């Protein structure tokens, strides 16, 4: 879903004035006091009409409030006469942003809170930038009742053949259905005009006497009564259908699509937009339900969600008869998705218990794992057991594969060090051994922390060695958002970055789905160039991501500690 960061329209409620007094100054109002210089707050702008200052609880790196010096109550009390004032407030907001070197003036959010959600009853315009760096709670809090937040769920495309459309829908878990568009409009009468303009030659193969068809009505963001659906179908009687209706098994299915916006709290009486088209194919969204982790035999704490697993499979262009490898396979969620599209799958993990399906269960009511819980069983559950090659207990930092381009795709979710620890074999201590130099069979090698930046350097290096040319690496990269920049994405001379998609996890963390394609063999480069890029070290120090992930939670307690120290002295 694309977020269109266009110039934000400011919502001004044009209604009759409420009983809130519009006075010059209210001594009980904190904003009146601030703009009167009584609070010692720094005023970033101050003129006869308006003042501007920083919000005390910022929801983004730049968060300013623009207030009129006069005590106007709240946005509900605004009338037509206030429009110039509000326009001026927006202007001042923009000036402040420019003065404070906000680079991208399209990545900004302006707005008022609609009562009763405003904290102070003195009208104040919030100015937030960059909007893309707003924290999770801020995004909720500063979300306007505005159409621009999510673009329409309907997307019109040109220049695609029906075959193209079918092949995309055969793989996509993001697209629900595809239609050949015959007409569209903002109202039903516009739709009618549009449909009557659609070429009869294009319609004729589907509407002739021998054909059978049915018409469905699909309404986005609204539930229609059955009787209303029938009425809408009947209203389409101007269409030149000559065939017969067949509800059970029609040759052709048509759909009337109505878009009622995206705000479930504000459903309009009439649709914002209507479309009519011939149904071509459905997407694979059913896979999200059928392969849901909730009903899978074998899961772990970090098993990848079904939808995301299929998206990763598509990013990696996994196809029938490919050989796919996951070096941090865990419970095999990614392999399940790849096997569904006909790839043969293998994986490794350093954790013996997970690979063997032993140990404590990740399910709430279950203590230990049952006998049918392992990766092979997962594939069996979905009928793809024949795609299972092997899994092994192995350390991803010490690869066990011979030096050749073996895999068509490498898909993985490396540990971030939050819910599963990052480990590799190795020890700083001297381990006592039996005199003959052997270990007991039950000896589990000691592991040390696997530095996060090394994980990605090793992963890229491994992929450059073992992918076929044209093969893809797809993985998640955890990111500390306040410090993120594109240069942090790990590089390798043999791998080309294809895409970089963010999924927000919290206000200060997210993970990015990185897709890379192998473009040349390592031996084609000279020795040094093949080595991991030294710029690839966005994670400084030991497990820095883990520290930063928890720093937000620990900030309060560490502040209290320092205060205690000061007091104690």
């Amino acid at each position, binding site marked *: 879903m694309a977020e269109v960061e266009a110039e934000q329209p400011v919502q001004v409620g044009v209604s009759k004035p409420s009983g809130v007094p519009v006075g010059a100054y209210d001594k009980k109002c904190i904003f009146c006091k601030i703009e009167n210089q009584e609070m010692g707050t720094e005023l970033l702008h101050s003129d006869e009409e308006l003042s501007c200052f920083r919000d005390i609880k910022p929801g983004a790196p730049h968060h300013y409030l623009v207030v009129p010096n006069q005590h106007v109550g709240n946005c509900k009390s605004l009338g037509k006469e206030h429009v110039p004032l509000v326009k001026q407030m927006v202007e001042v907001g923009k000036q402040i942003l420019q003065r404070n070197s906000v680079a991208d003036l399209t990545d900004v959010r302006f707005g008022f809170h609609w009562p009763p959600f405003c904290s102070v009853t003195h009208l104040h315009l919030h100015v937030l930038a960059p909007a893309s760096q707003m924290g999770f709670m801020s995004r909720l809090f500063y979300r306007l009742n505005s159409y621009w937040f999510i673009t329409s769920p309907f997307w019109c495309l040109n220049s695609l053949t029906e075959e193209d459309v079918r092949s995309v829908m055969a793989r996509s878990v993001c697209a629900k259905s595809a239609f050949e568009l015959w007409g569209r409009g903002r109202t039903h009468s516009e739709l009618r005009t549009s449909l009557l303009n659609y070429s009869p030659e294009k319609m004729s193969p589907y509407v002739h006497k021998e054909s059978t068809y049915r018409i469905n009505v699909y309404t986005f963001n609204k539930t229609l009564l059955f009787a209303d659906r029938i009425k809408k179908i009947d209203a389409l009687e101007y269409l030149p259908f000559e065939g017969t209706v067949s509800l059970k098994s029609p040759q052709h299915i048509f759909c009337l699509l109505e878009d009622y916006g995206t705000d479930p709290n504000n459903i309009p009486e009439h649709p914002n937009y209507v479309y009519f088209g011939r149904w071509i194919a459905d997407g694979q969204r059913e896979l999200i339900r059928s392969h849901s982790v909730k009903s899978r035999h074998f899961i772990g704490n970090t098993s990848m969600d079904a939808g995301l697993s299929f998206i990763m499979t598509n990013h990696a262009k996994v196809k*029938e*008869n490919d*050989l796919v490898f996951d070096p941090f396979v865990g419970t095999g969620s990614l392999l399940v998705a790849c096997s569904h599209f006909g790839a*043969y799958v*293998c994986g*490794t993990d*350093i954790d*013996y218990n997970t*690979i*063997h399906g032993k140990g404590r269960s990740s399910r709430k009511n279950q203590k230990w794992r049952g006998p049918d819980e392992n990766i092979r069983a997962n594939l069996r559950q979905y009928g793809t057991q*024949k795609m299972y*090659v*092997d*899994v*092994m*207990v*192995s*350390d991803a930092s*010490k*690869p*066990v*594969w*011979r*030096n*050749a*381009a*073996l895999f068509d795709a490498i898909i993985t979710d490396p540990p971030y060090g939050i819910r599963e620890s990052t480990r590799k*074999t*190795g*020890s700083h201590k001297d*381990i006592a*051994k039996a005199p003959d130099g052997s*270990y007991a*069979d039950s*000896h589990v*090698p*000691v592991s040390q922390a696997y530095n996060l930046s090394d994980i990605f350097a090793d992963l890229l290096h491994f992929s450059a060695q073992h992918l076929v040319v044209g093969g893809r690496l797809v993985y998640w990269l955890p990111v500390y958002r306040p410090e993120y920049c594109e240069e942090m994405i790990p590089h390798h001379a043999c791998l080309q970055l294809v895409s970089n998609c963010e999924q927000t996890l919290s206000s200060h963390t997210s993970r990015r789905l990185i897709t890379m394609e192998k473009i040349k063999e390592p031996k084609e480069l000279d020795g040094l160039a093949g080595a991991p890029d030294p710029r690839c070290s966005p994670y400084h120090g030991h497990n820095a991501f883990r520290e930063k992930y928890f720093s937000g939670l620990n900030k309060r307690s560490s502040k209290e500690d320092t205060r205690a120290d000061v007091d104690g002295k």
Partner: protein
Amino acid sequence: MKLLTHNMLTSHVKGVTKGYPLLIKATEVKVNDVDFNPQFVCRMIPKLEWSALVEAADLLGHRQDLPSELVPDYEKNEDFLKKVHRALLEVEVIEGCLQCPESGREFPISRGIPNMLLNEDEV
């Protein structure tokens, strides 16, 4: 562990230069029924070390007349492909170990899963 995997594994013990192929010492071997897919077999053959595959199949007693050299034009030879399919995907070592040809270090296989972890001092 299937022979397809074995064909791609090498010993990574420190200091070893000739770690391929690993010797298989099997105590339990199973033969499964896996759907024959000629396209997949054809795609894998160029990636294999052919002699290592034949050796391993021979050791397990499942060579089934696999030739010591790759036959030319194998894509259309269904009999040949079926034999390769059987060796690569149907023969499975359930219990045993893999031994590094140079250092002698053994990597155990249990329940069909090899454990390739090295100990702290071997790293």
